[in-house]
């Protein structure tokens, strides 16, 4: 909607006479450009601080802020689905994973305290690659990507793109949100692949990880210490809200921004919170229920896809009239199948159990 306003502003400015209204619109367009410019400056500055800042901890925190700004940029580019996903997954969950890894790699290390500069002291060779070579490679890569983007944007777009096709056939997909339609109907094979990748990452992490030595609760949760007073009420408030938001995002995905991925990320974030505050404790092996949730998304999605071969004439085709119901069913199971591996990846354990208090 914001973008539509800006578009109106631009077209209004182009066609408008020298009336007061046209001037206002011109100013609005200018303001939006100023906003885009500031956003870009913020992204670039944060990105540089993330890769080259002096303190690692600061860089990790700035990366989370970078993710949030990126979400704003995507909202500006008319991609609200992605803005939601980036804020929840890219900034939120990745940030939690990074902070927990930071604590494991450095916070426990006596040699490098959290505030020690990680760049070598002056006079030492700072890196194995000469700076000019790194700058040259970076400039080359940057120019390549910028060049691709510049040329692709400038080209006359083809008349018939996959996206236009998807929008034209949106009515047949069973849902009204074009991104959900592409993810769960037109290109559902990609989505199956994605859930498989998530599952494989979880399995691989289980193979590599040391058992139950990750992301432990804070020191204040050790038996000898009491929990801060406000943690309990805060959890009591946030937990039901997070479940509500999960349900809403899942339901909204059919006709407006949202869907299984955003919903799953919110649910996983809740699990991370409960894990950090000791409400959930790690468990060595997943229970039968957890195992079925972990594979549930892939199994159900594949089963429905294969059934489509018999009932609808093609693999991953839904029987006519059943699109919306099946998509909703798949999305519900996918939400859980996305949230659980993400939560377990953070927890670094095979399963979770409720803490008996």
């Amino acid at each position: 909607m914001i973008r539509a306003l800006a578009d109106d502003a631009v077209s209004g400015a182009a066609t408008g006479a020298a009336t007061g209204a046209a001037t206002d619109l011109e100013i609005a367009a200018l303001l939006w450009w100023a906003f885009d410019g500031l956003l870009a400056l913020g992204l670039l500055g944060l990105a540089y601080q993330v890769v080259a800042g002096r303190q690692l901890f600061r860089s990790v925190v700035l990366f989370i802020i970078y993710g949030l700004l990126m979400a704003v940029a995507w909202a500006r580019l008319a991609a609200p689905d992605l803005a939601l996903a980036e804020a929840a997954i890219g900034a939120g969950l990745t940030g939690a994973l990074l902070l927990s890894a930071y604590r494991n790699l450095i916070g426990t290390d006596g040699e490098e305290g959290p505030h020690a500069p990680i760049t070598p002291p002056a006079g030492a060779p700072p890196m194995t690659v000469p700076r000019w070579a790194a700058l040259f490679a970076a400039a080359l890569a940057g120019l390549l990507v910028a060049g691709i983007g510049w040329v692709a944007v400038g080209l006359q777009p083809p008349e018939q793109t996959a996206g236009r096709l998807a929008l034209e056939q949106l009515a047949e997909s069973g849902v009204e949100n074009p991104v959900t339609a592409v993810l769960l109907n037109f290109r559902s094979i990609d989505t199956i692949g994605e859930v498989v990748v998530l599952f494989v990452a979880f399995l691989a992490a289980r193979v590599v990880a040391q058992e139950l030595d990750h992301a432990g609760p804070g020191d204040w949760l050790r038996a000898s210490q009491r929990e801060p007073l406000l943690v309990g009420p805060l959890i009591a408030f946030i937990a039901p809200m997070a479940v509500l938001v999960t349900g809403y995002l899942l339901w909204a995905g059919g006709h407006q921004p949202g869907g299984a991925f955003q919903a799953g990320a919110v649910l996983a974030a809740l699990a991370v919170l409960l894990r950090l505050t000791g409400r959930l404790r790690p468990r060595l092996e997943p229970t039968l229920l957890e195992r079925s949730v972990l594979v549930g998304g892939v199994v159900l999605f594949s089963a429905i896809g294969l059934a489509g071969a018999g009932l609808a004439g093609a693999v991953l085709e839904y029987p006519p009239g059943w699109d919306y119901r099946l998509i909703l069913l798949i999305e519900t199971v996918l939400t859980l199948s996305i949230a659980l591996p993400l939560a377990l990846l953070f927890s670094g354990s095979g399963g979770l159990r409720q803490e008996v208090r």
Partner: protein
Amino acid sequence: MSQAAFYALVAGALTGIGIYGLITQRHLLRRVLAVNILGSSVFLLLVALARRHPDYVDPVPHAMVLTGIVIAVSATAFALVLARRYHAATGLTHLPEDEESEEALAPGLLNRRSLADRRSGGGPPPGQPERRQGARRRSDEDRRSDEGAQ
């Protein structure tokens, strides 16, 4: 210049920053951060390209990026687990290939020696066994409490 073109240029600059960090930084966590910046710059390019059509927003790149975000977090999580395991096994936070300039880093000397011991087939590095036993002990405790709850 259209908005899409502007953000495509920003994506190019972010790619440059990501590559720069990937090449110059040796700390594993920094490299994971740099790869994430790199990934998000490509996502930004795709989202900008989805915006280039005058009359509609292309949903296909959006779906691709949504898939990409989930895959990026999966890969990041796995990379971090690998880094932790590597750190637990060697005490290092960077890869041995990057050790050329190590002499200048006073704090790294001990770690480097411990890695050399490991390489030459010597005993476990000093300081390590104690911590790893500690880790195992914690794990055993957890295991016991785990069984107790079942």
